[in-house]
């Protein structure tokens, strides 16, 4: 049994095949990266893997269970969490509360106990608050414990999304361009954070344009192009693959930059 099995997955928007007949297996305990030019279908794939979109065709199996067609909160319940390419935070709450919402599935709170504030609830709230604070420290946000989410800088918000996702206690964590918009120091810290995640028993799927980060942390890379699988394998092999160099960078000269940081939009397709 594979950890995550994707079988002939497709997603069509009008005439656009954002993901087309895609199949792959991911193993537990590794860092898997998904790369590809802008518009290759990476975010669409993550939306399929979290139930935000339901597939036009194909199946998704996670730890042996078929999740195809379930609602997003069911994916979360089965142990899949994610962050978003465009921040999706609760800006009407404090940073700490954002992470506390991530604990939602592990809270036993009926309407009656919420309205009457039973003593058990107060105790659990303290524990929840403490665990959320611990996660914020874990991702390096100790100084923002008392801050409102809308008063935090961009780099910190990216990490806040990771803390919130970890609060669901996922076994699979999907990160959509976590390094985008980060300065080099922050990107380095992210690198180390991802390294620590697998030690926590979390399997990571990383969608990223920062090749330096991808090549540094990945055990396995999946390359998408026009919604299809272009190549797949260990980082070193993928880096040398001529099809990848061609599609992803468009020129042999740029291939030397595969080791360097930076986004690589396909000419004419990038935003």
């Amino acid at each position, binding site marked *: 049994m594979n950890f995550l099995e994707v079988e002939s997955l497709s997603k069509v928007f009008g005439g656009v095949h954002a993901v087309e007949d895609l199949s792959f297996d991911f193993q537990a305990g590794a860092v898997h990266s998904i790369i590809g030019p802008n518009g290759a279908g990476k975010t669409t794939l993550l939306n399929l893997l*979290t*139930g*935000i979109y339901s597939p036009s065709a194909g199946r998704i199996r996670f730890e042996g269970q078929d999740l195809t067609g379930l*609602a*997003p*909160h069911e*994916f*979360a*319940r089965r142990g899949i*969490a*994610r962050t*978003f390419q465009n921040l*999706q*935070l*609760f*800006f*009407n*709450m404090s940073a700490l*509360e954002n992470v*506390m*919402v*991530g*604990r*939602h*599935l592990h*809270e036993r*709170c009926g*309407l009656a*106990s*919420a*309205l*009457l*504030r039973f003593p058990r*609830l107060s105790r659990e*709230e*303290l524990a*929840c608050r403490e665990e959320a604070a611990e996660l914020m420290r874990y991702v390096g946000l100790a*100084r923002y414990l008392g801050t409102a989410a809308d008063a935090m*800088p961009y780099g910190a918000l990216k990490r806040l999304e990771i803390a*919130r*996702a970890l*609060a*669901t206690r996922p076994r699979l964590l999907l990160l959509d361009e976590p390094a985008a918009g980060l300065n080099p120091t922050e990107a380095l810290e992210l690198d180390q954070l991802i390294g620590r995640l697998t030690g926590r028993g979390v399997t990571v799927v990383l969608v990223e344009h920062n090749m330096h980060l991808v090549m540094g942390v990945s055990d396995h890379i999946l390359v998408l192009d026009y919604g299809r699988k272009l190549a797949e394998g260990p980082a070193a092999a993928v880096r040398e693959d001529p099809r990848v160099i061609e599609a992803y960078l468009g020129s042999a000269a740029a291939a030397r930059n595969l080791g360097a940081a930076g986004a690589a939009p396909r000419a004419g397709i990038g935003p």
Partner: protein
Amino acid sequence: MAARFATPRAGGMAALAALIALLPLGLRNDYFYDVAILVGLNAIVCVGLNLLVGYAGQISLGHAGFFGIGAYGSAILATRYGWPPLAAMLAATLAAAAIAFAVGRPILRLRGHYLAMATLALGVIVYMVISTEDRFTGGPDGMTVAPLAIGGWALRDPRLWYWVVGALLLAAVWFALNLIDSPTGRALRALHGSEVAAEVVGVDATRHKVMVFVVSAVYASIAGSLNAHFSGFITPAKVTFLHSIELVTMVVFGGMASTFGAVVGAAALTTLPQVLTPLKDYEMMVLGAVMMGTMIFMPRGVVPSLQALLTRRRDAAAAAAAPAPRPGDGQ
């Protein structure tokens, strides 16, 4: 830290309790009591509506319908069928909850204008039923309602009603504050902040929206029942679309996502027309001007705007008192 989090909650409750306790000193006659009771009942509706609109970020332009279900349900069962008023109130409340649950599931999947139209239609349907089923409701002329009797003793004195409504308002506020501070309340606020993010951390969006819709309907229905028994007479005027709009306006004026704001909004917009009666012809104009002024100068509503102002003042005072910050402390 826990103490700091508890303060606004406990402090607000204490302030509201003190206000309710001291207000009778300024209530000179029964008319004043009538207005105060009306404020209390509207405040109960608004505290519930604010859970839905202010916290969960949904909209309802039909809450006068739930007020009407509570008012007429209780009135018909108690007056026409001779039920004990408390049992009639309970039955009306359950009916409002059941209707909110049944209607909530399909319509709360809608967003924005579509949800507004669907809830508006719900309110209009309740109004139509009430004004046409005149065998039960008395139609547009309204109906008399039995007083709230417990055992053989009837509650009639407005001075007693004042304490009943005051206590219920305190309870309504306390329940709302508890809910907002609970995991369920956090999930509701999360839906407002980002529905997709709330869902991927495991929040069942539809279930939570329906739950808060039912809670807010129950608040409105109970206030409606009380209103019917208190005034002894009820007409469909309180079930109109206009009344739904008034309720939402109170919430927005007082401040969305602020439970005390909902109370302030209800108090302001219930008493203002009474104060303006000498200006009869211009009443609606003054009311409109007040609303536009609020939206332009305090778009977040009165209470949140004042809170922000006070916080800024306090921070400025603290900064002036403290030594100059070191460079790099700006975060």
